[in-house]
């Protein structure tokens, strides 16, 4: 495994470059727009002090190079600015939103990903049989439904008509504070169930396409035949030979998908009124809260760059041959 370290360093370097490029691009895009963003985009009744504080914090009266340094420096040191719409430091708003998003995205993603691996493997093994083909058709159908339509449909059927789930939000506003810890947890979980399941279904069908293709590629490999010739049962063959070689794409997709969900889950969060990063972002845009928008964009892109780097590392530990390809 001595070849692992230079590979990791190279990958880390690559991730860092990507990070710098993206962050710089974001900065450039923000500065492209003419005029003072605060005046143009914040609500009319901002005070003069707030405006002055804004200019000072981001260096608007200084040359562009200084602005860039100040900008990067602010983010690195954790000063994300002041949220005008929430009247709180952006950092606090982000922290809450981030935690809420995590609560929703992680279970949704885990469920969806595991489901995708199961579904994709099953479809590959049963390829050609009518049930598998039918499920592939269903997959195309489901993937053709935009996120927000799916969310609306789920909400309407399960919450509104069947009354099986709460109709939105993260907690029952009236009851929540008066509940015990157990009660409050149950409350959140109840509100979590439907949006998480909706997201999980989307993730499952999206990832299963990659995984199915990967398993199909592996199924015809010679070493699968060797395993069978040794007398191994199908479950052994799948577990020890097929999956370890086929999981590569599914893991790579995971690395990109998971951080992407945090901002991309916008639609589901909006429909279910879940107070996560996505919904906060949209509200910030509609409310012209410039600093909040900026911070969310930066944090999200950083998370994505890190996520894909992490996925690469996981993929390498799984499959020692990958090192050689770089």
């Amino acid at each position, binding site marked *: 495994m001595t070849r692992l370290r230079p590979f990791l360093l190279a990958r880390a370097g690559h991730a860092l470059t990507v990070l710098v490029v993206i962050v710089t691009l974001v900065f450039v895009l923000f500065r492209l727009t003419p005029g003072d963003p605060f005046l143009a985009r914040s609500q009319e009744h901002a005070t003069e002090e707030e405006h002055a504080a804004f200019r000072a914090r981001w260096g608007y009266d200084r040359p562009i190079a200084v602005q860039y340094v100040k900008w990067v420096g602010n983010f690195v040191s954790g000063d994300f600015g002041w949220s005008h719409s929430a009247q709180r430091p952006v950092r606090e708003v982000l922290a809450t939103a981030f935690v809420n998003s995590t609560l929703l995205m992680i279970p949704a993603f885990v469920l969806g990903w595991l489901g995708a691996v199961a579904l994709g493997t099953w479809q590959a093994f049963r390829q050609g049989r009518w049930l598998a083909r039918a499920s592939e058709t269903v997959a195309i159908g489901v993937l053709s439904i935009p996120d927000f339509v799916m969310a609306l449909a789920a909400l309407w059927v399960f919450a509104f008509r069947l009354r099986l789930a709460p109709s939105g939000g993260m907690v029952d506003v009236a009851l929540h504070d008066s509940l015990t810890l157990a009660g409050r947890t149950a409350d959140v979980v109840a509100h979590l169930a439907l949006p998480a399941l909706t997201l999980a279904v989307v993730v499952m069908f999206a990832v299963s396409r990659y995984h199915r293709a990967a398993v199909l590629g592996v199924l015809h*490999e*010679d*070493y699968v*035949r*060797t*395993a*069978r*010739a*040794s*007398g*191994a*049962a199908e479950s*052994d063959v799948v577990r*020890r*030979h097929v999956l*370890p*070689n086929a999981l590569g794409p599914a893991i790579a997709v995971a690395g990109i998908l998971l951080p992407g969900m945090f901002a991309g889950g916008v639609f589901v969060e909006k429909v279910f009124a879940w107070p996560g990063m996505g919904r906060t972002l949209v509200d910030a845009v509609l409310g012209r809260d410039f600093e909040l928008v900026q911070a969310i964009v930066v944090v999200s892109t950083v998370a994505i760059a890190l996520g894909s780097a992490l996925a690469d590392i996981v993929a390498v530990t*799984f*499959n*020692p*041959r990958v090192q*050689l390809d770089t």
Partner: protein
Amino acid sequence: MTTLLDVQGLRVSFGPRPAVNGVSFAIASGETVALVGESGSGKTTTGYALMRLLGDNALVQGTAVFEGRDLFTLPEAEMRSLRGRRMSIVFQEPATALNPVMRVGDQIAEVARVHGESEKAAREMAVAMLERTGIADPARRARAYPHELSGGMRQRVMIAMALLLKPALVIADEPTSALDVTVQAQILALLGELKRESNTAILFITHDLGVVAQTCSRAMVMRAGEIVESADVETLFSAPSHEYTRELLAAVPRLSP
């Protein structure tokens, strides 16, 4: 010598035209028999059919009685218990026949594990077998991945897997075609030694007449899915009775005029 395998009327088709068309032969225990032919003659398909390793799209007819039981009517679970234990196969291309993300020692041990040995015993058997196949420093090599080994070593690993549980029949599908000539000789010698130790019969599938002459006592010539001649090796080489066999022999380049 007792009859180990008796094949009658084997037909294999993947579509309208059969790849193997009514093949019958018998192998006695301990015998080394060659199945010779050009590519496309159906010899590999015959070997895979015996192990029931052909896919669902293959139609297999006929009987193959092995150690008293017809392989083609056995339930899958029983067939699985035979594979690797009483009959095994050495594949042609060791580079792709080994799982790239699994250490070779584990792959060999899997054969034992699948047939009931404990994890520990299986691993010990694997290392012992690696040593028996002539690999130096077997304990360390067992922890290697396939891509870290040379072609010849990989083939030794495949042989170790095939002979680990001392099966009664080994189907060797062109085991040396992918190797250099010098390594070929070593591998053939190894196979010879191992089979003598455990009295294993070998069905040697090959297109290389030189290999046949070196290792086998009997040979069957196959062409377009049928066996056209079957004789002991001396007779075959000195007085072939079928025209096709004569053509094959004539195609072998000779060093002396």
